[in-house]
C-alpha cells in the first residue's frame, strides 16, 4: 500500500500537475483564439531557462526565482502574439497553427543559441525524500507540485467564475461573435489569456526541469500529453484541462503498477501510450471531453 502511494500515486499526481499547468494554457488559447498553440511546450522551456538564469544570478531556490521565469515567458508570448499571431487573426486558423510551429522552432533555436544544448540542473546533488511516520517517503518536489496545482485550481476557479475578465474569457470561448456584439474588449481578453497561459507554462517548465533536468527540448517533449489532457478535459474548458492533466499523469504512472502479478501491468516504457489509449477510449464514448468542451 505504502509502495503504491510513494512510488505511483504521488509521482502520478506530480506528473499530472505539470501536464495540467501546460494544458490549462493550451485549452484557454484554443477557447479564446481558436487555434492549437504548438509553441506552448517551448514557452515552458523558456520559463525554465529564465528561472535558471535567475537562480545563477541570485543563488535563490528555483521556486523563489520562479517569478523571473514567469515574467520572461509572459513577455515572450505577448511579443510573439503581437508580431506573429495577431496579423494572422482574420485568416483561417490553420495559418496561426502553422505559425505556432514556426514560433516553437524559433524559441528552441534561440534557447540553444543563448544557453547551449547541454543538460543543466537547477539543484545539484541527490535530494533527500520527505519522510512521514517512517511510512511515506516522497520527494519534496512532488509535494510542491501538488501544492501548486491545488493553489492554481482554487485561483483559476475563482478567476473564471467571479472576476469580470474571467467571465469575459468564458463568454468569448462560448460565443465570440456575441461577445463582440456585447461590446467586450476582445484584445484585453486575448492579453489576459496569454498572461495566464504563459505564467502557468513557466511554472510547469520549472517543475519539469526540477524533476529531471533542463534542456532545449524540455517542453516540446511534453506537448503531446498536454494536448491529450486539454482534449480529454473538453477543449476550451480550463478546469477540464486541469482535470485532464491529472488523469493523464495518474494513468501514465499507475499503468506500470503491478496490479495483477508481481510484474508491472504495462512496461514503464509504454507509459505515454497508455495515456493516449485512455484518451482515445474516453473520446469514443464522450467526444466532448470530461467537461463538455467544444466539438470540432
Amino acid at each position, binding site marked *: 500500500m505504502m509502495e503504491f502511494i510513494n512510488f505511483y500515486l504521488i509521482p502520478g499526481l506530480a506528473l499530472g500537475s505539470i501536464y495540467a499547468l501546460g494544458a490549462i494554457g493550451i485549452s484557454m488559447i484554443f477557447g479564446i483564439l481558436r487555434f492549437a498553440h504548438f509553441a506552448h511546450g517551448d514557452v515552458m522551456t523558456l520559463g525554465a531557462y529564465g528561472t535558471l538564469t535567475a537562480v545563477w544570478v541570485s543563488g535563490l531556490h528555483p521556486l523563489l526565482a520562479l517569478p523571473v521565469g514567469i515574467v520572461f515567458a509572459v513577455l515572450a508570448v505577448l511579443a510573439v502574439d503581437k508580431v506573429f499571431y495577431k496579423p494572422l487573426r482574420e485568416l483561417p486558423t490553420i495559418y496561426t497553427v502553422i505559425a505556432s510551429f514556426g514560433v516553437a522552432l524559433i524559441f528552441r533555436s534561440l534557447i540553444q543559441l543563448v544557453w547551449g544544448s547541454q543538460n543543466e540542473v537547477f539543484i545539484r546533488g541527490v535530494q533527500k525524500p520527505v519522510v512521514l511516520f517512517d511510512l511515506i517517503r516522497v520527494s519534496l518536489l512532488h509535494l510542491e507540485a501538488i501544492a501548486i496545482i491545488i493553489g492554481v485550481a482554487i485561483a483559476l476557479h475563482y478567476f473564471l467564475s467571479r472576476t469580470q475578465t474571467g*467571465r*469575459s474569457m468564458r*463568454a468569448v470561448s*462560448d460565443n465570440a461573435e*456575441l461577445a463582440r456584439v456585447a*461590446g*467586450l*474588449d*476582445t484584445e484585453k481578453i486575448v492579453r489576459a489569456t496569454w498572461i495566464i497561459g504563459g505564467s502557468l507554462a513557466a511554472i510547469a517548465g520549472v517543475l519539469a526541469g526540477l524533476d529531471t533536468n533542463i534542456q532545449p527540448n524540455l517542453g516540446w517533449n511534453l506537448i503531446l500529453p498536454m494536448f491529450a489532457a486539454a482534449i480529454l478535459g473538453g477543449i476550451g474548458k480550463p478546469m477540464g484541462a486541469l482535470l485532464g492533466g491529472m488523469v493523464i499523469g495518474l494513468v501514465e504512472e499507475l499503468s506500470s503498477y503491478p496490479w495483477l502479478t508481481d510484474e508491472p501491468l504495462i512496461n514503464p516504457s509504454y507509459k505515454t501510450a497508455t495515456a493516449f489509449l485512455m484518451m482515445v477510449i474516453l473520446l469514443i464514448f464522450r467526444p466532448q471531453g470530461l467537461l*463538455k468542451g467544444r466539438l470540432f
Partner: protein
Amino acid sequence: MSPLLAIDGLTAGYGGLPIIDNINLLVAPKEIIVVIGPNGAGKSTVLKSVFALTSILSGSIRFANQEIAGIATQKLVPMGICAVPQTRNIFPSLTVRENLDIGTYAAPPRNRAEVEESVLTLFPDLKAKLNQPAGELSGGQRQMVTLGRALMSEPKLLLLDEPTAGLSPAYLERIFDLILAIRQTGITILMVEQNARQALSIADRAYVLVNGRNFASDTGANLLANDEIRRSFLGGSRPS
C-alpha cells in the same frame, strides 16, 4: 423632434458586394420601428450596418446627431446602442446571471442592482433560473436572457434581429408584449421581423424592403390596411 437614428442613402454589404442599396430610414426617440420584407431583402443587413458588422460602401448613419458609420461595434455599446442577434445570442455555458452581467461590462449601468431588478421584473421567468446555465433554457427563455443582457447596459436604442424566430406561438405573443413593455421604459426599438402581421400591429411605423431597396414606409396600421402590401407581404387574407 430630431431623430435618434437617421440612415441616409446607405449602401452596404459584405466584402464589397452590396446587399442593400440607397436605404433611408428614420427612428424617432421612443418609437418602435419594424423592418419587414421577403427573405433576402436585406433587412438584417440594415441592422448589422448600424452595428458595424457589414462593410459600408456609401451613405451615412447618424445616432443622436453623431455620425456612427464605421465606428467599431465595441464603442457603440457605451454610446447607448445594443444589439440582439437572431441566432446564437446567448452564452450557453454561462449562468443566466452571468449572461446578464456580461451586458454591464461594456457600459456599466449607474445602479447595477436597480437595473437587474427592473430586468427581472420584465422577465420574471428568469428569477428562478439565475444560477442555471443559459444553454439549458427553452428557446423563449433564451430570448429573454438575450433581451435582458442587452437591457443591462441601459441602452437608448435596441436593435432586434427577428426576436421571435423559431419560437412557439405562445412565446411569440409574449415576446411582442415584452417589446411593448421595453418601449414603455423609454427605450427606442428598431426591429426586423418575419412575423410581419404581429410586428406591424405593435409598430409605430414600418419600412418594407424589397431587393435591398426601400419599397414602402408608413404607420403599422396603414400598412396592415393596405391591400397591395397585404397581398405581397402578409400572405393575402385580411386579418380577422
